[in-house]
């Protein structure tokens, strides 16, 4: 059951961020970005699907990936708070993406040595995808941070708004800690040096500094979410709940 919970946390991170990124489809500032955003959303949702499928099998109660994505309420979601934050402007979206990918790249890298075959398979694929998510988001953070007065101000606002959600990435829930002890998942706290190296490199070029965070925000792993997630789920789940069992 602990492993089910730990896999669910990972799946929720990927699905929630994937849905957030997909919200840019048709609204991105450039045609290239309008292609890029759904592309990256697909990477994340694809990863989530495999993990939900696996979690459902571990739980053994016959839950499908759709059941888990569409029929769980806000309090049952176990994603970290960073990924649920609303898109706001492009600066916020790109910084959120950079923070997440800078964490997940070393995480999947380490997970390639997992004792669990499904995790190894997911990791092998996702690590490469996270590498180009970092490149893409990093380029934008630099372009906006070291850009015009307006773009630099927005980038700084984004850092102020999101930095408080970073620490939660490195915290393992009780379920995750069990999976880590069993060699199934890498230890979250161990990702800090690799994460810092990427963020410091990009922030230096983007003329940004990491602020002191007085009150790091946590709670997502316990189902305690911010005001944004419920609104997102209401849109994401409406169709399936109106037509239970609907499939493509």
């Amino acid at each position, binding site marked *: 059951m602990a492993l089910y919970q730990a896999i669910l946390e990972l799946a929720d991170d990927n699905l929630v961020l994937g849905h957030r990124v997909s919200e840019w489809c048709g609204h991105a500032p450039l045609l290239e970005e309008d292609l890029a955003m759904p592309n990256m959303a697909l990477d994340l949702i694809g990863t989530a699907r495999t993990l939900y499928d696996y979690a459902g099998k571990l739980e053994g109660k016959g839950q499908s990936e759709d059941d888990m994505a569409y029929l769980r309420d806000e309090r049952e979601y176990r994603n970290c708070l960073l990924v649920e934050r609303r898109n706001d402007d492009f600066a916020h979206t790109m910084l959120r993406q950079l923070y997440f990918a800078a964490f997940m790249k070393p995480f999947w890298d380490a997970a390639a040595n997992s004792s669990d075959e499904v995790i190894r398979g997911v*990791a092998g694929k996702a690590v*490469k*995808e996270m590498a180009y998510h970092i*490149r893409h988001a990093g380029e934008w953070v630099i372009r906006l941070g070291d850009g015009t007065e307006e773009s630099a101000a927005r980038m700084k606002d984004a850092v102020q708004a999101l930095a408080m959600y970073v620490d939660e990435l490195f915290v393992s829930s009780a379920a995750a800690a069990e999976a880590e002890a069993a060699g199934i998942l890498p230890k979250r706290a161990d990702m800090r040096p690799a994460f810092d190296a990427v963020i410091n490199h990009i922030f230096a070029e983007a003329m940004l500094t990491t602020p002191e965070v007085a009150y790091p925000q946590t709670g997502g792993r316990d189902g305690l979410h911010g005001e944004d997630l419920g609104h997102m789920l209401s849109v994401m789940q409406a169709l399936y709940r109106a037509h239970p069992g609907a499939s493509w």
Partner: protein
Amino acid sequence: MSLAAQEEARAWEAAAQVPDPEVPCVTVADLGILRWVRVENGVCRVGVTPTYSGCPATLAIELAIETAILDAGIERVQIERVLSPAWTTDWISAEGRAKLREYGIAPPEEATGKGLKLFGETTVHCPRCGSTHTERLSEFGSTACKAQYRCKACAEPFDYFKCI
């Protein structure tokens, strides 16, 4: 050759002809996503590896492979999604690379074993004129597996099959 081996060969031949729905110049065998075919107890099992986690073509590919094998007269087909080891562009055959170039898509440039460059550019050859004087327009192209490039020598805009 045993009956099962004959069926395996026939199934492989049929499956190998299936074109990729998004890059139809190459087949699933060229791309290396058709992993294996095994006939056991009258059931033909086929291993297929997705290219990208969220590749929307995965289902279409699996269905096309199943149909092709059924059309070859084999009655019971079971497609299995193989996640591990993860597909890399190194699995694209030399023939596949040549077909991509012919089609106007620059094939992936370097072996993934060297590790992924987080920053900095890869040198990409223009599929038309072969020049390395090319620039990336966007990391993301018309499908998950491609990036958009432009050749500064012959002015050709082209897709680059990303190296992952």
